[in-house]
């Protein structure tokens, strides 16, 4: 295993990490407001499909990505109405959303003939002057979306830590009774959080189809949405920890093709199991360490009714 392979591996990691990172960020937005969003897998598919569709029709990656975000946010309105207004159990609503999106995207994708239709992606951008370094410089030649992810994380982290709006959103997720008593309209804020979070999750899906693989296949997210849900728990709802977790999963996924290229003989399908096994391991570790409970948004997963009690 020489330096070249390691360099290849590290250079390809960000590409694999970005979908996890963006999806986790979107989930953090909605979960910090108290809404458990299990529909991430479905929303990523919607973003992926919309992104490819837009790319085939228009051909401008930036526009396609933006439209993908819009599409995911629109579909998430259904979910938001179900859990915030109709107080449907958030687990059922999330599962229903996933299967709805899976069916819808498969249907639209095949009817519109977008399956396996290759498109152009976006080019790599070097981070000058680091990209000029010999050897290691390759690590800093990543596409624009990778570079964009970092300030995005910074923006969300700053939003939560240092703005009054972020404070209000966190209050809604921690103690909706207190927020309500303070005059904050809990349903409206949750709605906004779900839509904004879903847009990010859609972007994650669109990244996979528009930037990474440059085509659409039904079900192409392959469980990444579910892994992102576990990732958020592992990251204890903190954006920066989620980024670290995303990088970890990106490393694991990036390793798979590198091992094959390096001629290491491992059973192919066992290697493909790794992300899922790692997720499971991560969940067990979180449960064992038990520290995650403190950072969990106090009212996560509970519908809010200003119920009049005696």
């Amino acid at each position: 295993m020489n330096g070249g392979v390691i360099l290849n591996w590290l250079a390809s990691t960000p590409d694999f990490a970005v979908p996890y990172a963006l999806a986790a960020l979107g989930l953090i937005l909605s979960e910090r407001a108290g809404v458990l969003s299990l529909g991430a897998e479905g929303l990523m598919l919607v973003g992926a499909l919309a992104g490819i569709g837009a790319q085939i029709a228009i051909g401008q990656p930036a526009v396609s990505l933006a439209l993908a975000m819009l599409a995911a946010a629109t579909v998430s309105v259904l979910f938001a109405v179900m859990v915030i207004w109709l107080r449907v159990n958030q687990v059922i609503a999330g599962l229903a959303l996933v299967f709805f999106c899976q069916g819808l995207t498969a249907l639209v994708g095949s009817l519109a003939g977008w399956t396996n239709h290759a498109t152009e992606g976006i080019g790599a951008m070097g981070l000058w002057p680091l990209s000029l370094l010999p050897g290691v410089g390759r690590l800093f030649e990543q596409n624009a979306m990778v570079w964009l992810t970092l300030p995005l994380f910074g923006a969300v982290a700053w939003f939560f830590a240092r703005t009054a709006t972020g404070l209000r959103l966190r209050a809604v997720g921690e103690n909706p009774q207190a927020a309500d008593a303070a005059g904050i309209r809990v349903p409206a804020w949750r709605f906004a959080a779900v839509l904004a979070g879903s847009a990010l999750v859609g972007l994650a899906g669109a990244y996979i189809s528009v930037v990474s693989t440059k085509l659409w296949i039904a079900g192409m997210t392959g469980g990444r949405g579910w892994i992102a849900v576990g990732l958020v728990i592992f990251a204890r709802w903190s954006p920066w920890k989620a980024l670290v977790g995303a990088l970890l999963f990106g490393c694991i996924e990036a390793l798979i093709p590198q091992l094959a290229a390096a001629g290491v003989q491992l059973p192919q399908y066992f290697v493909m199991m790794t992300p899922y096994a790692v997720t499971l391991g991560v969940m067990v570790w979180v449960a064992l360490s038990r520290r995650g409970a403190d950072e969990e948004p106090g009212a996560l997963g509970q519908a809010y009714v200003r119920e009049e009690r005696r």
Partner: protein
Amino acid sequence: MPNALELTGIRKSFDGFAALTDAHFAARWGEVHALLGENGAGKSSLMNIAAGLYAPEAGQLLVDDNAVRFAGPRDAARQRIGMVHQHFKLVRPFTVAQNILLTAPPSAEFRSHGERLRDIARDIRNKASALGFDIDPMRRVDTLSIAEQQRVEILKVLLAGARILILDEPTAVLTDQEAARLLQTVQGLARGGAAVVLVTHKMADVKTYADRVTVMRGGRTVATLRPQDASVAELVKLTVGEAVAASAFRPAPSARGAVRLSVRGLRTPASPEGRRVLDGVDLVLHAGEIYGLAGVGGNGQGELAGAILGLPGEAVEGEIRLEGQGDLKTMAASARRGLGIAAIPADRYGLALAGGLSVAENYAIGRVHTGRYGPVWRLRRGRIQADTQEAVRAFDVQGVRSVAQKAALLSGGNAQKLVLAREFGKSPALVLAHSPSRGLDVRASAEVHARLRAARDGGAAVLLISEDLDEVLQLADRVGVMTRGRIAGEFAQPADRQAIGQAMVDHG
């Protein structure tokens, strides 16, 4: 002098239960006005209406003699009304400043978030020192003691501009010194012109700090007077009412038997502030007697009951010995049920009955493990139905059209009778009754009491935990007073009511 806050003719019910039937209240500027009554008298409901959280079905609300209607707590805040609830509405992971920022009125000019927090922190420090205490605005709320959190709540409403302050049972969770400090502080606020409403059941506080007191009982206002003009005894009488013309105390037919239950040194872990919910409870219960545990709620009664029954909760140390069975703490709850312990918990639908299941199922679960209703592979539904119907008849459970109907449909009294039917069907050796007549009318209460007496006469040991002093005095052969997690005193019957009331008041 105009009234700062006035409520007249208020009526309010919840899902059929009438919490307020004809309530009046009026507080003036510059006074401390106590709202006095037992638990369930309607005090908190009335003040929740004043704070805009509930909307009344009938009646009127006036602020400064102007009629108002509130659609939510924000409207009340705009009328300068601020309420400090029993369960604080604070976001625990946030700092003090962040919590107060949530309710602070927006500033006139643009300030960045960091600047606003600094402004708020400065206001907090100023206000706190003006009131005579010390709060670090940068501390997280979950690191503060209960007393400190309460001060944050008070600062919150004051900094939001409240001139009418409502405090709901503020001293319930405070030590004596903390309570004294708090009440002196609010007295100072009243002298400064604010109107302070003190919702409480503690006579001592009323006598010491209130300028006027309104007494509520059973959802209506009973009297408004100056506490200086009345003795504690008279206040007690107004609050608790004349003794119900029903049963007077009837002693047991035979002398009590051997020790049935012995509790020693029951203790829960200490909280960070050093308080323990159970602080060394020692209790001895004999067969054929009713031990009445009196005391204000929140002093550890629920935890004591939970420890004896084996419900999930904090780990307790100490000993709980049942005659002939050894230490109960070593047994799981499911094992304890087979030992002849009957439980009548306070939280009917949280611990005794599954509302979504039928009356018959709720009845059957009591004895199904004995095999009475068939072997493991077959439930004998016919027998369950017959037994349930018989029990419903014997215990006079009303409103049961069919034993297959859901238990949640039963009214409070009938649900309680169903629980009794199930529990007493097992001929128990130990009966643990926690607030058994809560929410029941006089007739239902009398029936429940008769059952408890019958169990005692049959040789069971009965532990009666109740906040209703009347109930305790009517039933108990011995009376214990529980405050602050331990038994503060025991009295034999016939007991001196005033002495017991005093014991509760002194420590609670």
